[in-house]
């Protein structure tokens, strides 16, 4: 049954691809000529080129400009109209009485946001990876109505962050659905969004809820790529399910797990919309995260300070780059320990 349906999907895919395939074949002759000139390895440049071109124009170049931005001051928007101030913006971010106490800093909110973000990232990434992994493992089993279950977990990803924030605010607010249920169950309602620790937990839970389908899907694709005969071998070796997971699944999932780890980390640092709608950074400043700070400084207040916002974002980016490079470094070491097959 599932076979048949997959067959249909495959055939439909093939039908869609047929004309594309024909087009692709047209490319072949000129590309062969190119290949004759560049050699097999030289074709790497060709394969990279389109992506890198778009990437350069629309990502890299603006990024470089952004670095310049961070060295200017004033409210003007375009680089040409702005005053060069050197490292002043960075100086402002770093001017603190004591680095241990955010309150002693000129930009106290920046440091509060940094701290909040840090705690959030650690907790959220751990939670996200764990939940995504478990979900992927569960969805990877031979389930009936597989596409339904996949859709269930993926569904929230389809919602815009604003709607996500809104739904959960309705659920979590003082008179929300959750308290209604708590009340019906005989408990005392909690003001989830006004209590510091609950609000912080809520941001983590909601962001996991909203994005876990995304990462589960990546992991699911990775899981399905693990050759089945290895599981059979493990079964013959009398391996218990948990051990199969630790010793077979996890190592072989490593490349995809790395994707998930890097992406969750980056996206955790960049969390914004849903939190903005859900808690708005409150109570107090306890869920004020870096991007909200940047947004407030650079966009929300009518007197924008794009220079300061850029400086903050570049600091944030720099930290992320370092973290990611560490992750990649570890991964590369593993990769080099031997091509797998």
């Amino acid at each position: 049954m599932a076979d048949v349906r997959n067959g249909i999907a495959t055939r439909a895919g093939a039908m869609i691809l047929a004309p594309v395939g024909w087009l692709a074949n047209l490319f072949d002759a000129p590309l062969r000529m190119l290949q004759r000139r560049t050699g097999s390895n030289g074709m790497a440049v060709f394969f990279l080129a389109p992506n890198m071109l778009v990437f350069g124009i629309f990502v890299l170049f603006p990024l470089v400009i952004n670095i310049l931005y961070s060295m200017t001051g004033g409210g003007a928007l375009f680089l040409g109209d702005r005053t060069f101030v050197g490292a002043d913006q960075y100086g402002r971010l770093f001017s603190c009485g004591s680095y241990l106490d955010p309150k002693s800093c000129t930009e106290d909110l920046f440091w509060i946001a940094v701290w909040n973000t840090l705690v959030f990232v650690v907790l959220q990434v751990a939670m996200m990876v764990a939940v995504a992994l478990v979900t992927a493992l569960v969805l990877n089993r031979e389930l009936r109505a597989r596409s339904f279950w996949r859709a269930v977990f993926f569904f929230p990803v389809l919602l815009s962050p604003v709607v996500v924030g809104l739904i959960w605010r309705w659920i979590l607010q003082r008179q929300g659905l959750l308290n209604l249920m708590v009340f019906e169950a005989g408990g005392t309602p909690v003001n989830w969004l006004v209590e510091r620790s609950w609000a912080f937990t809520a941001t983590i839970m909601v962001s996991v809820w909203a994005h876990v389908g995304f990462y589960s899907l990546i992991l699911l694709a990775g899981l399905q790529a693990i050759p089945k005969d290895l599981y059979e071998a493990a079964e013959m070796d009398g391996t218990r399910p948990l051990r199969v997971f630790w010793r077979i699944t996890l190592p072989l999932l490593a490349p995809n797990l790395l994707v998930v780890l890097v992406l969750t980390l980056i996206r955790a640092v960049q969390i914004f919309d849903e939190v903005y709608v859900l808690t708005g950074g409150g109570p107090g400043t306890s869920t004020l995260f870096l991007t909200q700070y940047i947004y407030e400084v650079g966009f929300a207040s009518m007197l924008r300070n794009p220079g300061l916002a850029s400086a903050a974002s570049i600091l944030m980016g720099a930290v992320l780059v370092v973290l990611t490079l560490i992750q990649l470094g570890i991964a590369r070491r593993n990769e080099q320990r031997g091509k797998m097959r």
Partner: protein
Amino acid sequence: MSRVAEFLFRRRGGASWHWTDVFTWFWLIGGLIVMFGPALWLVNSSFKTPAALAEFPPTVLPYVTAEAIVEGYEEPLQLFEVRNDDGSVRVLAEVRRLGTIAQMVDPANPGAIIRVNIRNRTPKRSIAFALDNYVQPFLAFDFFLYLRNSVFVTVVATLITLLTNSMAAFALSKYNFRGRSAVMMLIVATLMVPLSVILVPLYSVISAMGLFNSLWGVILPTVATPTGVFMLRQYMLTIPDELIEAARMDKASEWQIYWRIILPLTAPALAVLAIFSVVWRWNDFLWPLIVLSRKEVYTLQVGLNTYAGQLNVQWHYILAMTVVTMIPVVLVFIFLQRFITTGIAGSGLK
């Protein structure tokens, strides 16, 4: 029934429930409630009137206060359940309310006015779907124009994304060339750049290229997503190099190796990226909002957001349209997720 159960609850081993089976079902049912519950509620809410939406505590289903036409009164009157002193309950229609006293009539016997303290009455409510939430936006805005724009952006951006990203990922996973790790690092490093950070410079670029108020201005900046390259590359690492070698022996050009060998074997990851790309582009909002300020080129999300004002957000329309705009993506998801099936890359080898 038992066949249904058997169908649903197929288990790992044979006869008995392994703990992994128990856990699986725990997770699935839990997921159904936690993941799907709020979403269902969203759908329900999209049928609520603005008043019902603002209501505390919220109701699960869309309710409105029941009304009845009562003889002698022009307008329909609201119905209430009134608790009498003796504890019995009857349904009355409210004529008017003065302070804490409501003047009511029995709809069956509209002659006599009954005075009721408002504490003793609760509105009688019935389920009703505020279809207006759906109908109005269709009438008020150019739904089909926006739909066309959205579809164009989504399809074109996704196709370009899949093509360029997979090409780059192929180069980065299966070739050894100088600077490969540098390029990889660069790509991953730029993953961290949130759009809002490069918004202004990017705007200048788009503006300089004359892509302002053009759908291409929405499409192009998004197609080089580092996420896609990174994800595909990691997946391609798991494809055995021997297959490429075999193709080289078969005199396949590098392009054909990419097209005929790598792409099909990356299908699961491509499906994932396609799903993501469709979802992203379809739901994209911030960037199109910046690039598109003319309604001929609005996408659905941008159109939808005209309901977000300064002081007031018309959530009932936004929710309804959210539900409508979600339908195509759900269908796309259901179609594409089928390609996330058992990877077969290993089965060509001994």
